[in-house]
């Protein structure tokens, strides 16, 4: 079930007002354009309706699909984060996109791949730590897309993520504590 199944017709109309500009931005094939469009949607409170987002869960952050383009060109995912909840370090499987913080404050820590050892492990080099406040955006572009996303605010955070094509898998990186990280493929599911 996607958000559009849950929403009443009034919200559905508003959903169209969100999706149409995002679809045009995705067609330019530029993250620069997408980030600007997502930012202006954020500033105009286009995602204010909390029913767009999956309910929070005590075990981990929730992912809910807001929109899946019928032609598979892009996906819009809403995420709900309780304080302190975050992702593991992960990539985006070569996809590009952008993310918007609707409410709350998220901390994005970006990494790049460093040296590899003979056992498939890799070094990760911190690029920057970037707090992202409400209405601000982040950008996802391979090969600068390895990051960790954590709700560092005091309340529930809602974020919107737009990805080129469907993202149903990615690679996570687990720290071995000795400076090396072990990559593992992960399948992604939706909570709502």
């Amino acid at each position: 079930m996607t958000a559009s199944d849950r929403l009443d017709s009034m919200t559905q109309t508003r959903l169209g007002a969100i999706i149409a500009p995002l679809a045009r931005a995705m067609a330019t094939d530029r993250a620069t354009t997408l980030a600007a469009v997502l930012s202006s949607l954020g500033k105009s409170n286009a995602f204010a309706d909390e029913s767009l987002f999956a309910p929070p869960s005590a075990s981990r952050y929730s992912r809910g699909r807001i929109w899946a383009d019928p032609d598979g060109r892009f996906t819009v995912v809403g995420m709900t984060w309780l304080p302190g909840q975050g992702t593991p370090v992960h990539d985006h499987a070569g996809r590009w996109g952008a993310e918007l913080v609707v409410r709350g404050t998220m901390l994005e820590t970006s990494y790049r791949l460093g040296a590899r050892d003979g056992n498939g492990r890799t070094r990760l080099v911190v690029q920057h730590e970037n707090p992202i406040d409400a209405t601000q955006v982040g950008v996802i572009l391979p090969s600068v897309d390895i990051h960790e996303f954590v709700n560092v605010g005091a309340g529930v955070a809602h974020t919107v993520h737009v990805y080129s094509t469907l993202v149903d898998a990615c690679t996570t990186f687990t720290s071995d504590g000795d400076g090396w990280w072990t990559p593992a493929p992960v399948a992604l599911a939706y909570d709502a």
Partner: protein
Amino acid sequence: MPERHVAIAGGGASGVLLAHALVRAGAHVTIVEPRAELGAGLAYSTPCPLHLLNAPAGRMSGFADDPEHFLRWLAAEGEPAAPTAFVSRSRYGAYLACIAREAHERGGERFRHLRSRVTDAVAGPGGVSVRTSDGETFAADACVVAVGNAKPAPWPLVPDEVRTGPSFFESVWHDDATTPGNPDESVVLLGTGLTAVDAVLGLRHNGHRGPIVMVSRRGLLPHEHRQLDRPPASAPFATSLGDVIASVRRSRTSNESDWRTIIDGLRHEINVRWEALDLTEQRRFVRHVLPYWNVHRHRMAPEAAKAVALLLADGTLRMIAGRTQTLQAIAGGVRVPIAVRGRDETIVVDAQRVINCSGPEHDVSARTNPLLRSLLASGAMVPNPLRIGARIASDGALIGADGRPSARLFALGPVRYGTLIETTAIPEIREQVRDLAERLLAVPAAGPLGPVLS
């Protein structure tokens, strides 16, 4: 057979790679370059760590016959990088300097670096007489013009009082161009291409946080590099550039493959297709297609794209498509009126700093380089009829005013623009170097009388 002696005017990337190839083949080389350290040139001298190569490391080997060379060098330097990573231009400058040192060591007495500038090269039946700005004249069997990219083309409608004022910078590579006078000042960048992106990143790195406006007629920002999940496509069958453009358009809308794979697949044969066009079609391409070709072909590193995207999103950076009207000097800065493209509207921006970020001047007759000026004056070089670059034969020889290719004067890199449509990036340069080195070994040896000195 006596060993050939080749004079190379310019010690940037193209000059150094050629010197290395010639020394390896047993020739004598005199490379004339005022900088103490060879290799970096204008392109790779920037110390800013945010200025990255515009191509991934895996494509940046200096040697056509050894595509992994740069990756091995990075690993040996203790900074291994994935083939898809974008490393800093200053690292690449260090790589080229290392290649120059290797050429020097390998060549021994056959490698000479004159810290000067070539002001003239006169070819005769007996050889080439090369003159430098120090007043030295020496003889060589051949001379190669490897002077690299020109300074930016001058921006139109900039009156002298603005141009010579403290708020206007003719080039982003001017020492102080990206060092803000105060961190909150307002900046206008004239241009929206890769050079303007360099200016944005340079300003930010130097602590600037004020508003930036980028302006160009079409407002075209370069596209972003993506990691491609498949190798470059074989170029689509096409009989004209129009067909090629149509197939790139189709791939953009069909979603079957990334259009980048088609653009990248074309690069090996784009010059062959270009040379097959007649002058009228070439003119049409330059006028109507080239700006679009450039933003698709010459793309931003993802790190650069991300930084630009965030600035555009938060509104600090603004992009305007339009023509600037006459710039005006105002107290403490410059007033930039912009006639917005496609609308009856003029936006006026008052800036404390205006930087010319237009691309390099491609019209050789407008260039100030003394060697180009004397070659043009003597008729040894003539501008290409497209007014971009010079007339160059397919083997790299200069074509003179008499319409005949020189036996001893050759060109490498951006001067070949117009004759070729892609001639500035390392993958093109290294192939030109490989072919030209072989060609130079076959120039006639200087006669017993030596070159005719004029």
